[in-house]
């Protein structure tokens, strides 16, 4: 990673432990990664792999172990009040479903102004002005008129733009976007992704982009972390990762995507079975039960997250793929 | 919660011989000098009906108190049965007994400044006597033919025949007719809601179901009376609420017949209890026109199965006297052949009757009515009689009673000191008021005899004969004698006389 001055977020052995009907579970298990200012990290995995929980842990919304160093401060040691100040001011959040993540009974202007007024103590006029700018910046036409609108008066894409405006209200250093396009149409999805990466570049924000679709993040992420059953199984710069997918799960995930540039009526190579239940995790590699190339050791011992050589491309697999380039 | 007391004393005003047996006062003697000022709050059993005789028809137990404060009679009657002048000065009968000449007081005026004179008296009485006006209790004053003005302050009552109870007709506080209202109020037809008289207190306001307020009449002709600034009459049908209001201080004096309150008040040194016994009784009417109650044996059996003592003990906590006759002790008839509680005898009589007996009783839907019903149900059950209970609202109970739609019904005999006319009305074969449809020539004969005879002793004998026959033939069952109770704060003075349940606020004063 580049110099310490560029380091914004450093996470070591982050573990989330929750009570569930099936007993104590760890939806996030010893996750370690770091993120530089102005960079984009994509976290990819199937639903239930612990991606959203990881985001909440970073935000301090769920109790966690391990260390989170944000901007030089160890977040784990910060009090709830300070955490509250960091949330919304230094870290902005965009949630998956724009239909449900905006308060239906508040005008969008109020919702965007709220963090400014809470954190930056802006006056009503200042915050109105800033809101107008923001609405323009996220591409909402006629922002003046839209200010007084309620969320239900906007389309899904517009709502997600509003949600992004809320996240950007206090000019955060980090934006966490938790599946920001999953609930949207393909057409809108492209726009929102484009918008996010444009804003990220313009504002030199770091971005954590969570998605279940490797294809979606390919174009925007600097780094990609693939999660499976609570753990990061592969982590590396996008280019390197796409060039050589080492972990078999990553590869399978990639292959399962139907592609418009593929021939018609191709049988998709799917991953058999289901992701494991957190309350009954398999011993050894968690992907082993679904892995075609699993050997005896895979069922016995968890593979460490390591790199082949000194590069930043880490993966956790006893029998990594040969590393042929993916794609056509 | 429309109280069973609603109807407690609602009957036509009557003709009474003024004999008051007791007027017991518990508590220390009142100091001589009344103090002036203050507001007295009186807790009443019922909401007021109104004060126009033609509209309200009869004086309820609550109305009596108000009307006595606002309007006045020509005469009051003392405990010995002598007339005591009020608005009149004197009353002289003619030699033939067929007319009375009455001198009126001068210089008195009504609260609306109309002068009190012969015209006021004549117009009031003539209004009630006019058949067109259908005054409900006109038959009670029927012997009066007409009332004439002799001069400005003299009136003459012309009677159809000599009539001994005339003095009662002029003074009985149960009767609407005795109170002289303002002729102006009658003319303007406001009397029913705004009573106007010559009395010590003037009507101020009436908020239905909440309060009726009267204030002192500054121009009251009897100087030295009307000590209070104002009196608030508050209808509180709920018995417990009424007593609670006395205890917590919202009321100064209350009417009640609730045993528990009276017993509790006896323990409370800050409270005084005033009682007054009179004629009449609580009773349970049998409908004797229908089987099985047309059979005297069945009625007698029920009389033996009934235990009045138990009712008085359980329901009234012993605060009512046992009734064996309707005279409230005013006439001593011995035991009047009263049928004692004797289940064995009852069973025997029923066995003689031979058929199973199933009955239904109407009672008021109040705790009191229900309790009486439940006691009777249990007692009858012990002798093998099934009693079905039908709780009814007061108006329903009345309607069914009057219409004869009942087998047994809770009822009351009104609080008269002279019970003769009432008994005649209730028990004569041909009477419209004979709701039990009781037919007995022997009874008819006795009733006519008591009316005709003028010799007091013979008359008493005849009345005792009636009382005895009631018990012998088991015409109805007694549910306790009439005794009025008033509970007051110790500081309330001058209310010792509570005859017929009336709290005479004209004499009352506060020693606070």
């Amino acid at each position, binding site marked *: 990673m580049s110099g310490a001055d560029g380091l914004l977020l450093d996470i070591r052995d982050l573990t989330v432990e929750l009570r569930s009907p099936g007993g104590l579970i760890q939806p996030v298990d010893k996750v370690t990664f770091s993120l530089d200012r102005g960079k984009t990290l994509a976290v990819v995995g*199937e639903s239930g792999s612990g991606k959203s929980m990881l985001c909440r842990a970073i935000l301090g919304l769920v109790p966690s172990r391990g260390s989170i160093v944000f901007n030089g401060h160890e977040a784990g040691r910060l009090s709830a009040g300070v955490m509250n100040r960091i949330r919304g001011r230094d870290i902005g959040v965009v949630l998956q479903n724009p239909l449900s993540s905006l308060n239906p009974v508040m005008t969008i202007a109020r919702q965007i102004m709220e963090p400014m007024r809470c954190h930056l103590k802006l006056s009503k006029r200042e915050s109105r002005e800033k809101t107008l700018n923001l609405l323009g910046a996220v591409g909402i036409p006629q922002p003046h008129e839209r200010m007084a609108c309620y969320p239900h008066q906007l389309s899904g894409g517009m709502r997600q733009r509003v949600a992004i405006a809320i996240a950007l209200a206090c000019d955060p250093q980090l934006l966490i976007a938790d599946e920001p396009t999953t609930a949207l149409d*393909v057409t*809108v999805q492209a726009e929102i992704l484009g918008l996010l990466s444009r804003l990220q570049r313009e504002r030199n924000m770091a971005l954590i982009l969570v998605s279940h679709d*490797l294809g979606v993040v390919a174009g925007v992420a600097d780094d990609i972390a693939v999660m499976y059953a609570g753990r990061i199984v592969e982590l590396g710069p996008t280019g390197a990762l796409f060039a050589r997918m080492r972990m078999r799960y990553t590869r399978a995930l990639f292959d399962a995507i139907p592609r418009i540039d593929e021939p018609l009526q191709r049988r998709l190579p799917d*991953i058999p079975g289901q992701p494991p239940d957190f309350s009954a995790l398999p011993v050894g590699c968690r992907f082993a039960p679904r892995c075609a190339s699993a050997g005896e050791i895979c069922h016995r011992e968890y593979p460490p997250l390591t790199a082949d050589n000194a590069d930043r491309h880490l993966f956790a697999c006893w029998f990594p793929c040969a590393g042929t380039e993916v794609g056509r | 919660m429309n109280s069973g007391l609603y109807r407690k004393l609602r009957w036509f005003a009557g003709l009474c011989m003024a004999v008051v047996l007791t007027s017991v006062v518990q508590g220390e003697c009142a100091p001589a000098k009344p103090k002036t000022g203050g507001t007295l709050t009186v807790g009443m059993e019922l909401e007021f009906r109104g004060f126009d005789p033609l509209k309200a028809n009869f004086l309820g137990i609550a109305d009596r108190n108000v009307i006595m404060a606002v309007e006045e009679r020509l005469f009051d009657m003392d405990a010995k049965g002598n007339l005591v002048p009020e608005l009149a000065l004197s009353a002289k009968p003619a030699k033939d007994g067929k007319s009375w000449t009455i001198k009126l007081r001068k210089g008195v005026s009504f609260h609306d400044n109309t002068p009190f004179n012969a015209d006021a008296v004549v117009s009031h009485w003539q209004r009630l006597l006019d058949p067109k006006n259908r005054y409900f209790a006109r038959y009670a004053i029927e012997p009066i033919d007409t009332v004439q003005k002799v001069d400005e302050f003299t009136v003459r009552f012309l009677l159809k025949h000599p009539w001994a109870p005339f003095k009662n007709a002029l003074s009985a506080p149960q009767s609407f007719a005795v109170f002289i209202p303002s002729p102006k109020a009658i003319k303007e037809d406001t009397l029913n809601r705004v009573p106007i008289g010559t009395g010590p207190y003037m009507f101020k306001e009436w908020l239905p179901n909440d309060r009726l307020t009267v204030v002192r009449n500054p121009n009251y002709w009897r100087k030295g009376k009307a000590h209070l600034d104002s009196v608030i009459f508050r209808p509180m049908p709920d018995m417990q609420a009424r007593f609670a209001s006395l205890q917590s201080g919202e009321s100064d004096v209350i009417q009640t017949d609730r045993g528990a309150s009276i017993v509790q008040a006896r323990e409370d040194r800050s409270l005084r209890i005033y009682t007054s016994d009179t004629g009449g009784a609580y009773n349970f009417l049998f409908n004797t026109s229908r089987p099985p109650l047309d059979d005297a044996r069945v009625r007698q059996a029920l009389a033996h199965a009934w235990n009045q003592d138990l009712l008085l003990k359980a329901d009234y906590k012993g605060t009512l006297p046992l009734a064996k006759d309707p005279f409230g002790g005013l006439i001593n008839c011995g035991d009047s052949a009263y049928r004692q509680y004797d289940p064995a005898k009852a069973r025997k009589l029923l066995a003689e009757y031979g058929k199973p007996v199933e009955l239904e009783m109407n009672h008021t839907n109040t705790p009191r009515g229900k309790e009486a019903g439940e006691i009777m149900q249990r007692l009858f059950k012990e002798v093998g009689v099934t009693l079905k209970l039908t709780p009814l609202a007061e108006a329903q109970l009345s309607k069914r009673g009057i219409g004869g739609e009942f087998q047994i019904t809770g009822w009351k005999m009104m609080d008269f000191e002279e019970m003769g006319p009432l008994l005649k009305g209730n028990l004569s074969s041909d009477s419209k008021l004979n709701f039990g449809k009781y037919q007995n020539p022997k009874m008819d004969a006795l009733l006519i005899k008591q009316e005709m005879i003028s010799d007091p002793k013979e008359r008493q004998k005849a009345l005792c004969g009636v009382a005895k026959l009631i018990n012998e033939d088991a015409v109805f069952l007694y549910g306790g004698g009439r005794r009025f109770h008033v509970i007051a704060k110790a500081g309330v003075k001058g209310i010792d006389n509570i005859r017929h349940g009336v709290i005479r606020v004209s004499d009352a004063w506060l020693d606070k």
Partner: protein
Amino acid sequence: MSGNGQKYLLQVENLIVEFPSAQGGRVHAVSGVSFDIKAGETLGLVGESGCGKSSLARAIMQIPPPNSGRVLLDGVELTSRHNRELREVRGSFQMVFQDPLAALNPVKTVGESVELPLRATGLDKKIDVRKVAYEAFAGVGLAPEQYFDRKPAQLSGGQCQRVCIARALISRPKLLLCDEPVSSLDVSVQAQIINLLHDLKQLRGLSLLFISHDLAVVKNISDRVAVMYLGRLCEVAPCTGFFLAPAHPYSSALIAAVPRPDPRQPGGISSLLGSELPSTITPPSGCRFRTRCPHAQPLCAEVQPELLEISPDHLVACHFPLHEEGRC
């Protein structure tokens, strides 16, 4: 696949669906749509959310019947049938919904749900429903012994969708409508379901109406594609030609918007669709796409373009169709 002599399994003629909107006014969900599906053919129906795809599907299923227009299945008119008659032929056309969990009664076991079509039509007196249902479970790749008596909440999304497919197929339909059957599923599971549909199609000779907003998925499974915009069809074409050379500007924009899982070829951004979908209560006059169309001319506002054949089997409703400008 061509040939006029071939029998149409489904014919939809001038279908119109309107309903009162919650905000007042009438929603013109489907405004005169006609198309047909041949036996054994798969038609992919594509469009943004809110374009009337689902309304169209439900109108074809007669839940509720359309306001006007005809639906013929195997030459038999469905629209004029009464409830009872309709119920008798329900078995021959079935549907799979978008949200598999919502499409299953939460208090019943999935087995009961699968048996329902047989029991509802009174077949339970003639055949062993349980046996048929077990077979149906096996047919969609679920072990009946393991899953038959579970409640929907105890299954994963993919398993629920398999159950739904089993239910749809138990009455041996000729036509299967799939209303976004994979859009709520993870990529890996999506691939499983698409493959399953592929297999079933081949095994049973099913005809499919496959509705999706994801062109990549549609391309993977369809023989022909129909593009829908604001209640009208823009283009109907065989897959081969369509993806090579879309004729309608909207089709072209849709294809351009599909993300490509390749960091070197980000794509997925289409400036055409920046503006919002117009209201379905007051749709634009003439060509409904004209408000977002880069090639709109005054004529487009006045005359509604008809769906015309520009090459064999390739129909397009545009005054100014594109020529060989499409991508891929």
